[in-house]
């Protein structure tokens, strides 16, 4: 892989880290409470429990961060 200058990648590294950690904290945390609703008033989206869709979304965000990092930040050095 090509090796772009480190300083140019710094903003991307910071953005990916922030998004990844935010997804990790908000996904199972506050977001899950907001997305899923409460036991008396369960939320659904297209007939699917919203809590399950929220999990899929959170996982997608975290995995995307890894894929972007693997394509741009992580260098094959040997």
């Amino acid at each position: 892989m090509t090796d772009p200058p480190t300083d140019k990648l710094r903003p991307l590294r910071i953005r990916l880290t922030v998004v990844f950690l935010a997804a990790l904290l908000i996904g199972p945390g506050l977001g899950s409470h907001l997305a899923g609703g409460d036991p008396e008033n369960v939320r659904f989206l297209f007939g699917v429990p919203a809590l399950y869709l929220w999990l899929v979304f959170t996982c997608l965000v975290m995995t995307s961060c890894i894929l972007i990092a693997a394509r741009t930040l992580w260098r094959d050095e040997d």
Partner: protein
Amino acid sequence: MDYIPHITLILYLVGLLALGILGLLKGRRAKHAEADYYLASRGQGVLTTSLTIMATYFSGFAILTFPGWVYGNGVPPMFYALNLPVAAAAIYILGNPIRRIGRKRGYITPADMIADYYGDSQFIRGMVAFLGALYVVPYVVMQVKAGGILAQGLFPDIANVTLLGQELTMENAGVGALSLITMTYVIVGGMRSVAWTDVLQGLLLLSAMLLSGVVVMHALGGPSGYFKEVSQLDGQLLTMPDAPAKFNAWHAVTFCAFASLASIVQPAQWMRFYAARDSATLRRTAIAFSTILPICFIFGVFLVGLGGRTLYPMLADGSLPVGLTNPDQIVVRVIQDLFPELLGTVGVILVSLILVAVMAASMSTADSNLHALSAVATRDVYHQLRPKAGEKERTWFGRAVIVIATLAAAGITYAGSGTNLLNTIAAFFFLAMAFSAQLLPITIDLLFLRRGTKAGAVAGLVAGMIVVFLFPPLGALLFGEDSALISSTGKLKVLLDVGFCGMVVNTIVFVVVNRFTTAPDAAHREAFAQDLRNQPQLKADLPISKQ
């Protein structure tokens, strides 16, 4: 039809032994016996590395306990799958510098690296080896036991087996057979055999996880029918509970962030980083781990747990329906009922394959941990006591450790459940990841910060371990179920991951002691940093003989 489970199991076990022998043949010409036996000469490629890391990461827990949690508690436990992207990121971010410096400096165990950085201290090497053993030993015993239980599940109609005039239960016969086969291929081929069998076991495990979810969804009328049934479930199963209920958000966050990292720095995984061929291998492994595993969980085996709840609803008083004695049995129950009904003979074959895959999950964890235990006992204990021992002698000692550990594990499980020893080991098993997590502060320090001191590292490790010992179930064995301390830590455990709690104390003690003690000298730290960064060492830093 009756012979399908027998044939599947025999083919699987013969396949494992064949891979073990292939590993032996491949390693015969190796120049360095020890590095070949423990690290496959540091040449493992993407397929082997990714599948051996995945197979080692998951025990029978993945395909039995996790869906059992979903069956009992609905969607909330599914959030624990978010530990997978965290572990995937750690495979590259922690694993690649570990691989790089391991190759340069010839490390084999985690303690080789940690002790080297903190001043070649025997005490810190012993501490790290002890922490590794606290993770590895209970895993070996419990996975051997799980293999026996699964053998019983594969042949439910066979109550007893007679062997050399001795009547054995199917569970004990399974424990004996699986221990013998696992021990054989680990002994003959070392890391290469373990990793190659992990490839077979990992492929079986991942296919089984995904396939079982697809079939359950199909049985309930496709995605729309499946979710229509699921939407009828109790609202508590479809919403996140508030703390301190089980599987609350606090516990999910701390588990995902720290239990995953603890599993990644345990000895067997750490050695897999040393064994990876290059950085591209670990980069691609991280990609595979972050994409394949979440799919297999979220669209596979989790759906079996949730669909199982609609197919086998719990009784009004909250007890399990007839045919289930434990929520962990839900996957086996669902596939045994649905697959033959939907797919006929193919279904019967698939049931056998999936049960073998569950067995594979246990065996792949047991073999990796046995192999890691052998490395830790040889490098961190035997070699320190007998520094003159050559590579070949050490490798044979390691093989002897594997034999002794396997016989001990089989003996403990044969002695029967309910004994004090097995209960104690089970208690350690439930806290294994919490012990392993205590390596994280010093790992992060030596990889990225290099400000810690030997005294700080030791003090932090001891403090973290003591904290873990205070939590149930271990704490309850030491202080009694009714003590005020266990009552408090029990409440805290519901809210926060135990490893996280230990790690917080560990880090505080580490930082405080670092402030009052002396760090390794600057030249040593710089040389270490250069080896971690893949930069050529300055000539002045090299030993005189190499200048």
